[in-house]
């Protein structure tokens, strides 16, 4: 048991437990990152420098970033409902997890695997070279199969993300006609929207432009800032 392990093991377990209890998905992702980075350190302490690097780059770097991207698309604020929809499920799940842990730990307790031999001899010519020797000799077929798997995954992701266009893209002329028709029917403003802060005292993005009669042009500020409690007061304050 190395010092690295002594430090990282409690951290990993605590972070993993955190994943179970935090409400927000982003927090869960960050806690998972903690676990993964700590795991990378454990790999390093176990004479696996290549896996250390891959763990950092692939897992923490690529996979977790992918998770975060998706979270941003789905909505950062999305969190679990508090109420459990399946009666008794949470208790049963916790119990089952506990039983699993107890059983597996009991099995580990039953075993006497002895001490680690260490990889000094295996890594003699360098860990990376030794792994490469294995990957491109005995495991070359599996390695090539993983390449096929990755390509398939990429194509699959594209297929899933693809959305078929059901009508032709509107041309610029059509867009212009649409705007003029909207103006003719409902008096929608033809020209570009006024920029925020025009003729106003400040040019901040949350300060509405002033119209010739001195009133606020509501469209000039981004839709997301409308009705924001903070902005409401800011608008008032900015025009005193």
């Amino acid at each position, binding site marked *: 048991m190395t010092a690295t392990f002594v430090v990282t093991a409690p951290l990993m377990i605590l972070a993993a437990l955190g994943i179970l209890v935090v409400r927000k998905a982003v927090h869960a992702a960050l806690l998972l990152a903690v676990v993964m980075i700590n795991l990378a350190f454990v790999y390093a302490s*176990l004479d696996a420098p290549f896996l250390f690097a891959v763990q950092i780059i692939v897992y923490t770097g690529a996979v977790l970033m992918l998770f975060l991207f998706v979270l941003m698309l789905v909505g950062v604020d999305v969190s*679990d409902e508090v109420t459990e929809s399946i009666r008794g499920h949470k208790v049963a799940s916790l119990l089952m997890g506990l039983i699993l842990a107890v059983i597996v730990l009991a099995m580990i307790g039953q075993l006497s695997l002895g001490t680690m031999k260490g990889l000094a001899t295996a890594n003699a010519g360098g860990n990376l070279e030794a792994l490469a020797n294995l990957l491109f000799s005995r495991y070359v077929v599996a390695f090539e199969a993983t390449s096929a798997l990755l390509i398939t995954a990429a194509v699959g992701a594209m297929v899933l993300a693809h959305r078929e266009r059901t009508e032709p893209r509107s041309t610029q002329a059509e867009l212009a006609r649409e705007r003029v028709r909207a103006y003719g029917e409902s008096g929608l403003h033809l020209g570009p929207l006024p920029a925020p802060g025009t003729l106003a005292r400040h040019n901040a993005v949350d300060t509405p432009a002033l119209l010739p009669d001195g009133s606020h042009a509501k469209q000039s500020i981004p839709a997301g800032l409308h009705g924001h409690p903070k902005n409401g007061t800011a608008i008032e304050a900015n025009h005193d």
Partner: protein
Amino acid sequence: MTDVTPYLIVSAVLFSIGATGVLIRRNAIVVFMCIELMLNAANLSLVSFSNLHGNLEGQVTAFFVMVVAAAEVVIGLAIIMTIFRSRRSASIDDASLLKW
């Protein structure tokens, strides 16, 4: 010379936590994270065994697990996105129409 048992214990605990997370979390993305946690726990065991036996087979296997996990994440997240696009929800409980 270190004992392998603590590594295995940590691996088992992480795996159990991951399994429990899969069962009790309802956000599909978090469920997915828990699956990743279980894979990582398995990897820890593999790397530990590699060290225990003094050869690199375990590390190679762990590497393959990482590759497969990466591919799986790509597809899984794409599926989650597709479901979200049609149902405006990332809760796995919402997709529960196929039942008795």
